[in-house]
């Protein structure tokens, strides 16, 4: 399928460039609807791989790239089940999102995340599957999961470890603090920091440039330099599910879901 207009995401193919747009209000929270549409995208990607050389993922919402997993939905659904059922449901959800993330991560296309604003949690993890991150100077990155009694569950830690020094990974993970695009570029997470409102434009210009390269060479280079850390990704799912069974998680999710405060993201 070369074109899709969904409720949470849309994609299209133009001149060898696939563009995946995120547009679920309020800030691209990744819940079941987004997951289902991303699964459709992952299935379509196999067909698109032969017709394209690059993929750009971006958000068309002003607030940012993505605020991460839909915690309010997760809390609501988990309240309708007993704890064992909820853990089983979470495991199923993680297995599905990991398949999507791995499909994008391992795609032969050169992949670019064009990010702006809030790039938190699962949204940050979606950006991390891409080969390049081009960030608007107002982008902000964070893994706030520890405040819920969890670790990132969409493959964030193994992919951060793949890309960055362990000191930065521990800082992001253990303090739960957010940092801006300038810092993200300094530590090697972001390849380009661009003026406000320019990330998609720069990503498109970069994708056009990539067309000049031989595809087989680009694919070989990517496979060589960017292995998918499957073993650690499996371990992440196990740790997440172990932690999710703890009562502290339910309390953390409730606090977030019911929060009316102005700083609910703060640890």
């Amino acid at each position: 399928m070369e074109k899709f207009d969904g409720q949470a995401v849309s994609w299209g193919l133009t001149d060898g460039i696939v563009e995946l747009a995120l547009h679920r209000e309020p800030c691209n929270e990744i819940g079941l609807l987004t997951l289902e549409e991303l699964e459709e995208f992952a299935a379509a990607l196999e067909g698109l791989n032969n017709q394209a050389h690059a993929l750009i993922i971006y958000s068309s919402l002003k607030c940012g790239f993505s605020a991460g997993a839909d915690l309010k939905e997760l809390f609501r659904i988990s309240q309708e089940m007993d704890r064992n059922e909820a853990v089983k449901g979470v495991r199923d959800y993680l297995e599905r999102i990991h398949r999507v993330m791995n499909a994008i991560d391992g795609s032969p296309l050169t992949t670019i995340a064009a990010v702006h604003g809030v790039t938190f949690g699962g949204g940050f993890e979606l950006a991390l599957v891409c080969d390049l991150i081009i960030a608007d100077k107002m982008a902000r990155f964070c893994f706030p999961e520890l405040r819920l009694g969890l670790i990132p569950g969409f493959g964030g830690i193994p992919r951060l470890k793949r890309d960055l020094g362990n000191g930065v990974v521990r800082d992001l993970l253990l303090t739960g603090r957010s940092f801006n695009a300038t810092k993200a570029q300094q530590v090697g997470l972001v390849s380009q920091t661009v003026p406000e409102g320019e990330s998609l434009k720069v990503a498109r210009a970069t994708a056009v440039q990539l067309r000049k390269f031989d595809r087989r060479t680009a694919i070989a280079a990517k496979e060589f330099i960017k292995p998918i850390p499957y073993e650690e990704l499996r371990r992440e799912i196990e740790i997440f599910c172990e932690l999710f069974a703890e009562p502290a998680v339910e309390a953390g999710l409730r606090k977030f879901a019911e929060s009316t405060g102005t700083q609910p993201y703060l640890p």
Partner: protein
Amino acid sequence: MLTLNQTLEEILTLAASHFKVAREKLSPDDDFFRTLGINSLQTLELLTRLEHHFQIELPDYELQGVSDFRTLAQRIQARL
């Protein structure tokens, strides 16, 4: 280096300009969430703008419980 009052003035000017509020309507002891009418995502945006403006890193946990411009200026001043 800027004095605390200069830092405070620059914060008030930046906030007024970005959130389109008349500068004279902002006072150092105002609750900036209420005065600027900003939500949690806009607060992050303000934090990023302040970091760029003052060329500092301001971990967001240092802002926990901070809601007035004067205290915000003190936190920034400590990082200059």
